């Protein structure tokens, strides 16, 4: 059996994504069937920086599969503080667990772990580089809200320059047919040209770029919001001038489709008004739950492929 790791969402083929979505849907429909799927198996969570929500999601996922969790919590505890390398930690942890979820502030750390572990490794975020299970959560949410990955007009809004979850989502959704993309951001935070090239232009996909969220609103089937951070701007004036344009309020939603789905990778600060939380179109808390189900599906898949299950 071959050990397989997931560092980038693009490590998974479209067929594999479809299978993961199908598994997650089956878990949601028949949770009892999976309650002992990972009996006596252990997940190691190696979190070199705090990300409580991601760690809790992985841990909840493993517990719901009947498995156990061993944690190395915090960058200033245990081996990380002693200066042990990621490579050595991955080798050591492979000796007493079955699968690893790693979060690390440095880009590429998850690949180093995967290259040295003898068990599957899931990237739970490596700096600003990749966060594949976030994209899996996004995809399951889109599927459950729309029952399809095709023929959708997908708006992404906010910080499209540094927001890697947006880049991964564009890359993932560009692999399905007949989708249109609307890229909504201030001039300063547009999607980088290499992302547009890889995800959209090279496949001749229709897209438009705009700075105007309200004008784009009526077309959208999906609206993926991200935060516009103060520190991304050169001066305070520009930030203050622009920030309100990219905050979602009930007023801005007036022209939206009645079956729009609003997603956000969370945590939010103020970019979605809490007044929208009770709107049936708000899907961002369902997205959190969907993240757990996709992590369950991914853990199952990798343990099966590794021959552990």
């Amino acid at each position, binding site marked *: 059996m071959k050990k397989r790791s997931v560092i980038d969402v693009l490590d998974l083929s479209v067929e594999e994504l479809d299978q993961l979505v199908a598994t997650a849907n089956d878990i949601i429909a028949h949770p009892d069937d999976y309650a002992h799927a990972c009996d006596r198996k252990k997940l190691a969570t190696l979190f070199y920086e705090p990300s409580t929500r991601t760690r809790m999601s992985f841990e909840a996922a493993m517990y719901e599969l009947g498995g156990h969790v061993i944690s190395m919590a915090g960058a200033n505890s245990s081996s990380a503080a002693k200066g042990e*390398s990621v490579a050595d930690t991955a080798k050591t942890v492979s000796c007493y667990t079955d699968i690893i979820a790693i979060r*690390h502030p440095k*880009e*590429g*750390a998850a690949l*180093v772990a995967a290259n040295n572990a003898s068990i599957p490794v899931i990237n739970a975020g490596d*700096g600003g580089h990749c966060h594949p299970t976030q994209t899996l959560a996004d995809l399951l949410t889109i599927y459950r809200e729309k029952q399809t990955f095709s023929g959708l007009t997908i708006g992404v809004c906010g910080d499209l320059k540094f927001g890697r979850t947006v880049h991964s989502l564009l890359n993932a959704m560009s692999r399905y047919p007949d989708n249109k993309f609307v890229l909504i951001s201030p001039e300063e935070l547009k999607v980088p040209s290499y992302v547009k090239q890889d995800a959209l232009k090279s496949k001749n996909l229709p897209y438009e770029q705009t700075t105007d969220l309200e004008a784009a609103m009526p077309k959208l089937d999906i609206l993926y919001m991200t935060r516009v951070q103060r520190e991304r701007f050169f001066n305070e004036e520009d930030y203050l001038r622009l920030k309100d344009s990219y905050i979602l309020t009930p007023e801005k939603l007036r022209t939206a489709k009645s079956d729009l789905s609003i997603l956000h990778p969370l945590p939010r600060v103020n970019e979605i008004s809490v007044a929208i939380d009770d709107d049936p179109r708000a899907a961002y808390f369902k997205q959190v739950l969907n993240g757990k189900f996709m992590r369950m599906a991914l853990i199952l898949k990798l343990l099966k492929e590794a021959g552990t299950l």
Partner: protein
Amino acid sequence: MNIDPIQNGVVIDHITAGKGMRLLQLLKLDETDLSVALIKNVVSSKRGKKDIIKIDADIPVNLDLVAYVDPGATVNIIRGGQLVEKRQMEMPELLVDVIACKNPRCITSTEQELKQIFRLSDRKNKIYRCLYCETKAEK
């Protein structure tokens, strides 16, 4: 201008004019005691001007590095005054410990003894990216 033919050694030919010095430095030939000649702006029948590096010693040359800096170059191995091997450069899929990642957020900046690996991500535009963080190699 003439430089005596070498008996045993390496001639790196067809270097794009102007890239010879950089290649010489990257191969650390400027730091050796060997007899090394850099001939710049030689008029070549095929492609205008070129640079040539001659090394009067049979030393191993990092072909990946040559291919990375100048894929149009050729490396000729000379023994007993005869050309025994002529190697066309081809851009390697992987560059291992040839160049270093400059991204301060890359794991290679903190993880000890990690090999610096760059992968050819775009052959047409000669773009290499760090295997770990996918940052583009600077040319």
